[in-house]
Structures are given as C-alpha cells and as structure tokens.
C-alpha cells in the first residue's frame, strides 16, 4: 500500500473515477485537493490514467477472424436445425373444449382437442422431439377464423398446412384427398381409398385419418362408414364429429345406439363431379360402389361446391324433404 495518510482510503473511489473520466465535478475537486498534498496518491492517479493507454491495445485485440467465422457458421447451422424443429402454439377455449393450434413457418401443423386441459401435458407436442414455443399474434387470427367456422359463419379454413406430423407419405396423401371433400358433404373411408387409387386400403385410410394432425382443417369428420355410421373420431369423441357435421347442415340419426348419416336421403355428386342428383336418379343404379360417392346434406351445400342440378332427376324441382 503506497498511501500514507488516513484519508487516502476514502479518496480511492474518487481517484479511480477521476482517472477514468467518471467523476462528477465535486469528486474531481476532492481528488485535485487530495493529490496536491499527497504524492503517493498523485502517483496512483497517474498510474490509473496510464492504464487507459495499456487497455487500448487490449481492447482492440480480437480473437482470430477465422475463429469468429467458424463460431458464426456453427451457430447458423444449429439455429437452422432448431428453427425447423420449432412450432409455435396457443391453446384456446372453444365450444368443442380447449383447442391447441400449432404452426411452423410453413403452415399449420397441429390442431388438437385438449378437452379441459390448458397445458401441453395432454398434447402430442409434449411427446414429440420438437421445440414448442407459446406464441400469439399469428395464431390468434387462425383462432378467430376457427370460431367463425364452428359457429357456421365460415365455410372454409384456407390455411397453409405443414403436414410434417403426419406419420407417412401415405398418410399425407390420404389427408390431401380428404382436404378436397367439400363443406356440407360426406364420403366413406372406401371413397377416399378409391380416390387415392388404392380401393382396398380402407383400413389404412381410417388409420391415417385417426392420426390426422389437423382435424377440422383437413375435414376427416366428413369421412364416415360405408353404412352411414359415423364410426369414430379423434379417439372416442364421436360427439364432436356429430356437432361438426350438424354445423355443416348434415342430418344425423340415432339408431340402435349408433349415430349415422341417412345416406339414402342425401344428394349425390355425379362421378364426373359436375352435377348433383337425387338418390333415386337412374345412373346410380349402374354404379358398382355407390357407397364411395360424395353425398351432400343440402342443395345449398352442393351448389356452394359448384355443382349444378342433374337435368334428368331435377333435384332443383323435386328437392328431398327432411
């Protein structure tokens, strides 16, 4: 210790502050007064000032440029990997219980019924090797559109989709075919398999739809059994399927404790896809697999899908009665 006066310890903070240019005017005056009568502290002040010169070289010294570049490159690779694995999600209340919506940069990846749960514990996201990030604004807009849809005020959810959570390319192909089933219409698992060019793959289609990561958006609720039975939906939530179909104007009957769509009382889309007919139209008798056709619950639904009334059976003049 070079100081030799009792007040030297008190001045030390001010001394350093003055040397590095951080002292207020009063502290500067205290330092000037002190060093005028204390030579060792004057020496220390000069040393502190000199340190700035020494620090200048140290401050400008930089790690090798190649090391910085290497670190940056490695970071960018890792960030890209993380980015691809990240989904943003939000959980919202809905008439169908809490619903989780998750999106990637490419589109909506997951829409999930959570029931009463309000966190990720019951979500598929918790069990996947993915980064889930709770996020807001963009998903809020999707939620508003979903609510309009569930309240019957919107017929389409034209959301970009990211089907990364589908389990295989076959499942993705099934989902793309299913996405084309119009609002207010139903078809059968066999109908989807047939449209896919794999008419024997009915069970595989059912399995693919069971794992549909984006229900409602890819309307797997519009796929029913060949008999008209609703069969299953999102595990054991067939009641949700009933509500979704009812919202779209599809009539549901309950018979023998089973929910079914009365296929015989629906309008039928012709195989060329341009017209809709009464179920009694003559061409239907020549169809080998009528259970694979697309059926509409109402004329409005068929016409909203761009179909015209058949000129032979004239469903426009002889509409079905409920």
């Amino acid at each position, binding site marked *: 210790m070079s100081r030799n006066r009792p007040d030297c310890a008190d001045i030390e903070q001010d001394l350093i502050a003055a040397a590095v240019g951080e002292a207020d005017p009063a502290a500067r005056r205290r330092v000037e007064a002190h060093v005028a009568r204390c030579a060792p502290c004057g020496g220390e002040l000069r040393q502190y000032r000199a340190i700035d010169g020494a620090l200048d070289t140290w401050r400008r010294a930089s790690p090798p440029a190649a090391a910085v570049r*290497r670190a*940056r490159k490695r970071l960018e690779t890792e960030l890209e990997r993380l980015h691809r694995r990240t989904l943003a999600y939000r959980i919202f209340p809905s008439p169908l219980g809490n619903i989780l919506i998750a999106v990637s940069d490419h589109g909506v990846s997951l829409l999930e019924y959570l029931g009463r749960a309000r966190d990720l514990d019951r979500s598929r996201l918790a069990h996947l090797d993915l980064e889930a990030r709770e996020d807001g604004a963009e998903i809020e807009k999707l939620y508003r559109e979903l609510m309009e849809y569930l309240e019957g005020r919107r017929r389409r959810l034209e959301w970009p989709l990211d089907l990364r959570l589908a389990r295989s390319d076959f499942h993705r192909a099934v989902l793309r075919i299913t996405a084309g089933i119009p609002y207010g219409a139903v078809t059968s698992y066999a109908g989807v398999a047939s449209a896919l060019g794999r008419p024997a793959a009915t069970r595989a289609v059912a399995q693919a739809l069971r794992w549909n990561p984006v229900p409602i958006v890819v309307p797997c609720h519009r796929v029913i059994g060949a008999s008209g039975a609703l069969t299953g939906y999102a595990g054991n939530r067939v009641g949700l399927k009933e509500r979704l179909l009812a919202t779209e104007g599809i009539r549901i009957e309950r018979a023998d404790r089973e929910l079914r769509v009365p296929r015989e009382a629906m309008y039928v889309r012709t195989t060329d896809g341009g017209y809709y007919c009464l179920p009694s139209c003559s061409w239907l008798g020549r169809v080998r697999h009528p259970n694979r056709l697309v059926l509409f619950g109402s004329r409005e639904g068929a016409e909203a899908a761009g179909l015209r009334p058949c000129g032979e059976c004239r469903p426009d003049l002889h509409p079905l009665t409920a």
Partner: protein
Amino acid sequence: MGHQPFETIVEAHHGEIYRYLVRLTARTSEADDLSQETFLRAYRAYRSLSPDANVRAWLFTIATNLARNHFRSEKRRRRAHAAVRAARVEADSTSPDGETLFNEARNRVDGIVATLPLKQRAAFVLRKVHDLDYDAIARSLGCSAESARSHVFQALRKIRRGLADHAPARLELQP
C-alpha cells in the same frame, strides 16, 4: 412495433457476444460453445421479449449467466486460468497479424483480467470493451448499479497493481 427477424439479431450481435465470451473464458473453444448456447436460448425466448427491449443488453445478460454457470465448476475455472497463464496460442494461420496482436495483449492485461473473480471480470469487460452503462451491467450481473461500478473499480485496482508490478517504469513514465 414488431420483432426484427432473428437473423438480423445474429448478424448484429454475434461477433460482439463471441468476443465478450472469449475474454471471459480465455478460450475460443469455450466461447464458441457458450455463444452458440446464448443465441439458441435467445432464439427460444425472442418472441416473448418486449419489442422495445434492449436486445444487446439482453444478450449480454444471457451470455453472462451462461458463463457464470459454466465457471461454477471450479475445475473448469482452474483449467481456464492455467490456459491463460500458459498463454497457449490457438493457431489460426489465416490471420497471423490479428493473432499476434491478440496474444501480445493477452500476455499483458488478459493474464491479470483472467485471474479476476468472474463478476469483476464480466463487469470490467462489459464496461471497458463493450461500453455498457452501469445499469445494463447491473442487470447482466444481477446486482445494483453501484455494485457493478464497484466491480469495475476493483478490477482496475488489481490491473493497476498487476501492471505496476510487471512494468513499473512504463507506468510511471506516463503523464
């Protein structure tokens, strides 16, 4: 006002955060790992950051916390100090001038800085190299602005003594 794309955050701040961590750890390999972890954590939390937050100070805070966790292992800390004392050269044939300058400076001040307790070292580097104000340093270190200033001054005290011991004549020659 929304968030800038995260790529622009990397572009603007990666070099600085990396250099900060090199000074804290004294090893480019550890700075490499810690800077990567800093930005991966920042990426995960970025969207929940207030859009008008000071991103630079926030990144320094993350980096400082990671470095503190890293150095909690006394073994690692001792190894880092040994590396500084040995003034081990991490070869980089593409920029010999930068390397020479870097190692020369390390021999003088870095050797002293590396022996400082982490809080003093971080506060000193944040203040003297990265020009953060004491409030920002305080946030990074989880202390008051007054403590942050005290850490910097304590570091200066030790550096002055270290340099005076090493080259007393040179220091005294300065006006």
